């Protein structure tokens, strides 16, 4: 068995993981990132829209500041976020954008003079100042008071990830790609690294580290329809949950994106609506302006997704063999804009749908998009429950997003949190020695070997992993979607409990040799069903509506009883359900809970008596 020793082990080579590894590299520490795919193929590369930071260079961002960004973020979160973290984020974001520019990101820049922009389908003119020529510019994105989203045409995630990976290569940060982390090595108090499997040879490998970080992105693939890449399957969350001592925060906080294309659920960027794209129904009429007169299509995405689903339920969706959908109209933005700033969208329509968005409408529906919940950390990125374990990015519940994250805030989070947590990791490693206990390491390796053998030999049963996975995805899709209620959620939890039993009886059809995709799927199926149960049980117990968590039977946001974060633990591997605990949403409320100014406004305030 190969054992590799490093100062810092980062599980995940997306933006959050690599950004943190850079801090380690710059401090002279050795750092290794593990990744399922070559670093640059990580899901961060798929983010087209941009990153929010209050630089205020564009004329449309005048008067912007970290204060305003902070307020937008807290309102967006429906007061579910940790306000100290949101503050830290908003203050740090502008410097981080400049740092990325220094490393080589080709941000779009301010072009002085007049230009046309669209808002809610109407044409307006803006005039950029001569004085700001060449500074980093911004575009509009859902749910923000100012134009604040820095972008690189429509390949922001791609360009930033390439730049960050270039910086890693320069510093000698290693990336071990085609490697999956299976479990964490720990003694119940401290984390010592991870057991992994090579997706080239199938061999197990041990990584020992003074600090370990989880930066494995989202877990959207536990849903049936999702914009997430196929590798966003929760591997890091599973490793953390399996320790029994690390909680998942707010797993019920799942965001749906208004514009996934039908049928493949590929996302078309919010930039389409930001730039003036509109949503139309079966009669090719706009409807968002009726539900949300002020923000219309630009309201935050949980609000837009909810009204879209509502409108479809009113019978105003477009029928198709893949279910009902609505239309996204960007035709009026014109050929130059669509093939320029929105080129990726143009390519998606022509390549995957065979339609031309300059002349035709795009079929869209709300689809799972982002996991606000995840591995719970404190504001330094230190994971609850284990020393030496950190997390950042979408995998983490650092918690600046609460119950709804704003477009452009998560890509920004990856680099901001990656930088901050990376520095805390450096402090941690430089602050003391770690003693590795070989008995703990050997026991974990043995556990993983037995798990593999059990699946390959079929001694636990012969359930087909793909069928079990499909059952899990359907259960969530049906009972734990945009609109939720007691009946649907109870059924969902009950069927997931059964599906967990089936997951425990999975056995391979093949011999599992080498990378073995079947073994890959089988190794995570139990963990995925457990994550699904954390989502569904959290949603069932939370008897209020907040951000993207919408209970039809409890439509009000209830600050009196539910201004809290759910913490889900899986104490023993054989348990059938997670244990839920709660903690205050925020240590302090710089911005006291109030009205978001969009969406439903029924609120049970903390001051209200029974």
């Amino acid at each position, binding site marked *: 068995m190969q054992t590799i020793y490093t100062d810092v082990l980062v599980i995940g080579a997306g933006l959050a993981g690599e950004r943190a590894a850079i801090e380690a590299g710059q401090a002279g520490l050795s750092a290794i990132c593990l990744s399922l795919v070559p670093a*640059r193929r990580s899901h961060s590369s798929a983010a087209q829209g941009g990153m929010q930071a209050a630089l205020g260079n564009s004329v449309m961002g005048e008067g912007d500041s970290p204060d305003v960004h902070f307020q937008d973020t807290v309102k967006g979160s429906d007061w579910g976020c940790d306000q100290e973290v949101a503050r830290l984020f908003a203050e740090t974001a502008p410097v981080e954008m400049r740092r990325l520019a220094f490393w080589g990101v*080709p941000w779009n820049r301010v072009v002085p003079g007049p230009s046309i922009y669209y808002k809610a389908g109407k044409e307006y003119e803006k005039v950029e100042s001569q004085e700001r020529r060449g500074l980093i510019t911004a575009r509009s994105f859902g749910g923000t008071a100012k134009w604040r989203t820095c972008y*690189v045409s429509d390949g922001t995630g*791609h360009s930033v990830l390439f730049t960050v990976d270039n910086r890693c290569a320069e510093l000698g940060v290693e990336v071990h790609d085609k490697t999956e982390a299976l479990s964490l090595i720990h003694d119940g108090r401290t984390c010592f690294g991870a057991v992994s499997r090579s997706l080239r040879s199938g061999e197990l490998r041990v990584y020992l580290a003074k600090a370990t970080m989880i930066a494995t992105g989202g877990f959207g693939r536990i849903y049936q329809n999702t914009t997430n890449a196929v590798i966003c399957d929760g591997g890091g969350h599973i490793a953390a949950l399996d320790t029994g001592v690390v909680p998942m925060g707010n797993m019920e906080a799942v965001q749906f994106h208004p514009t996934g294309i039908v049928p493949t659920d590929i996302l078309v960027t919010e930039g389409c609506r930001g730039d003036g794209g509109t949503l139309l129904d079966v009669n090719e009429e706009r409807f968002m302006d009726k539900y949300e007169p002020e923000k219309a299509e630009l309201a935050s995405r949980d609000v837009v997704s909810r009204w879209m689903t509502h409108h479809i339920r009113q019978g105003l969706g477009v029928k198709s063999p893949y279910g009902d959908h609505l239309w996204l109209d960007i035709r009026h933005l014109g050929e130059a804009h669509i093939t320029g700033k929105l080129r990726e969208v143009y390519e998606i329509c022509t390549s995957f749908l*065979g339609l031309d968005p300059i002349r035709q409408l795009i079929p869209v529906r709300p689809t799972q998009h982002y996991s606000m919940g995840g591995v719970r950390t404190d504001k330094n990125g230190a994971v609850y429950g284990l020393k030496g374990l950190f997390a950042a990015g979408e995998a983490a519940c650092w918690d600046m997003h609460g119950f709804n994250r704003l477009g452009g805030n998560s890509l920004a989070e990856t680099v901001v949190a990656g930088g901050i947590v990376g520095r805390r990791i450096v402090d941690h490693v430089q602050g003391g020695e770690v003693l590795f206990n070989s008995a703990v390491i050997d026991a974990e390796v043995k556990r993983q070997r037995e798990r593999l053998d059990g699946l390959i030999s079929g001694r636990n049963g012969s359930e087909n992993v793909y069928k079990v996975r499909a059952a899990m995805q359907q259960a969530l899709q049906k009972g734990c979607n945009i609109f939720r209620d007691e009946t649907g959620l109870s059924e969902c939890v009950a069927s997931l409990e059964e599906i967990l039993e089936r997951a425990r009886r999975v056995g391979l059809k093949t011999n599992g*040799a*080498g*990378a073995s995709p079947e073994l890959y799927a089988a190794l995570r199926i139990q963990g995925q069903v457990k994550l699904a149960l954390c989502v569904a049980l959290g949603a069932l117990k939370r008897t209020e509506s907040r951000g993207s968590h919408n209970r039809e039977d409890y439509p009000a946001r209830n600050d009196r009883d539910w201004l809290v974060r759910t913490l889900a633990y899986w104490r023993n591997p054989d348990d059938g359900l997670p244990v839920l605990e709660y903690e205050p949403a925020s240590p302090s409320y710089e911005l006291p809970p109030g009205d978001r100014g969009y969406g439903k406004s029924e609120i049970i305030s903390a001051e209200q008596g029974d």
Partner: protein
Amino acid sequence: MPRLLKFNIFRYNPQDPGSKPHMDSFVLEETDSMTLFIALNRIREEQDPSLQFDFCCRAGICGSCGMVVNGRPGLACHTKTVDLPGDVTLLPLPVFRLVGDLSVDTGAWFREMYNKVESWIHTSKSFDQSAVEERMDNEVAEQIYELDRCVECGCCVAACGTARLRDDFLGAVALNRIARFAVDPRDERTDRDYYEIIGNDRGIFGCMGLLACEDVCPKNLPLQNQLGFLRRKMGITAIKTLFRR
């Protein structure tokens, strides 16, 4: 009546002592808006769970799914079955090391490439937290992005005669990378520095200029222009170098 599609797929798992290179066929009924992503996953889930291939974004963005489709390298997720005949032959990309079936090791190849061309901004400056960013014309930013769009799928390398003949050839993707840094004012490298890297047979002078690379690039990168640009630039640098001696 939907078509029945026949997929002839290269099979070999080097990690399995019982496995020998061969072709397998699978038959699927075509469905609406079917791509090779949908087809291959169905084959794996319904017919042969050992079938190896790589997808990630399934949206033509991440470059994971390069393979040879009926003789032509391309992105599988980006390939609609309506555009294909009823018989589809799928092979792994050549040049890259085979992992199994249709899956190849692009990660290791590209990491080596970054190190050879030093794929990062070379600057003597250091970052100043308190300063406003250096200005850049938007046009320049867009020029850089135009070349930064490469998704490192490896299709251009797989299609390149030179790359298949000599494994030290850098390939169009690496030459494009150099061009990306050459247009970036933040990179302080001179033509002489670039010449050290690509002014030889492994680099720009090894290229035969037949442009199979540009032909297959799924991102339509202007590889022809970039190769021409570098050839001229490096030609001039070569002459200057001679005179300096």
